[in-house]
């Protein structure tokens, strides 16, 4: 059980996060909920990339933890490149979320509602 969890827990968690977020984005009609769904998708994607870079015996890619990144061709540190990409993705996700929320505030000020269907009817 422990080995199974070590190998698959991150994959299962990330894929189910992406699934939950996608379901929310596809079915909900409130703009705020759609933004929350996009955020959940973002978290799932970040976790997926980290899970790709990681394996159960990996140490952190810092030279306090290890003197080598690989020994005899066997990687013993987690791959640092996806981690740096995720570092970028987290910051950009923060910026886009803030901008989306600001636009949501403006939409609420104009239409008085956040429901996409009511906004579409008000446009007609």
């Amino acid at each position, binding site marked *: 059980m422990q080995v199974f969890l070590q190998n698959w827990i991150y994959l299962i968690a990330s894929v189910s996060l992406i699934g939950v977020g996608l379901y929310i984005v596809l079915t909900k009609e409130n703009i705020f909920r759609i933004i929350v769904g996009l955020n959940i998708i973002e978290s799932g994607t970040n976790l997926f990339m980290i899970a790709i870079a990681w394996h159960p015996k990996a140490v952190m890619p810092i030279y306090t933890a290890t003197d080598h990144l690989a020994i005899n061709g066997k990687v013993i540190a987690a791959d640092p490149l996806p981690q*740096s990409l995720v570092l970028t993705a987290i*910051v950009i996700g923060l910026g886009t979320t803030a901008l989306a929320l600001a636009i949501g505030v403006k939409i609420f000020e104009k239409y008085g509602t956040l429901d996409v269907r009511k906004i579409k009817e008000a446009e007609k």
Partner: protein
Amino acid sequence: MKNDTPKVFKSIFALFVVAIFMIGLFYAFVSMPKGWGVNVNNRVSRLYILKNVRTATKWLNSGKFFAKGMKPLRAEVPYKPIKFKKTANLEDGAANVVTSIVVDYRGFDTLGEVTVLFLAASGVMMLLFGKRVKPKRKKTEPSLIMYVGTRIAFAVIFLFGIYIFVHGHLTPGGGFPGGAVIASGILGLFLGRNGYSPNHAGLKVFESLSGIAFVIIGLIGLFSVKSFLANFLPTGIIGNLYSAGFISLIYIAIGMKVGSELAAVVDSMIGDTKEEWS
């Protein structure tokens, strides 16, 4: 889909799409080679792990390890382990490999990332600027404990944020998490007192100056090492605080920029106070 489609159909369709995505991701993950099960020497060159492109290029050019018959070299390259606090003058002396990728090798990417964050923050400020003051709601005044406690906590949080971005090349963390920690301290100040508002002009000047500092550090690299954002300082012994050349300088600039930017975003999001055109 039209408005009159029953909700059940929509849910089933959404579940179908979600299931396709999840199965695809699962398959992509399972069919990917995992780190421990693969001999890296069969996939990438040892030069990749050497973390020193200059030496590797020298070896390549001297023809010492690459035979004339073009035999790409893997296990043949001598590999010296990097000893913490002992090895000196590496190409990039950061102990944290993620930091050396983010700031040094992909520094231009990080500049673009900072630009994206700047654009998002200025977009938020532009959209929420000059919001009308809403009719006064009854608000509970924070207690004295809250007022004093957030101010004491702000000092500690500020110091911790500075620690995170100064030690970005040694420990996990860096400019972006450090800036976020500082902004969270400022959020605490908002909670501690009604009608609190930071100095807008100060935040903007701070943010612009640190952004300019980033570009200037890059330009110094352009003029001294002939490459934009090149490491122009000696890298020192790996693991020391004064090592890794310009990485700590850039992380200080990024940390100050992100902290002031996120504080401005928090300020315009809370938007409780009356804003005036200045």
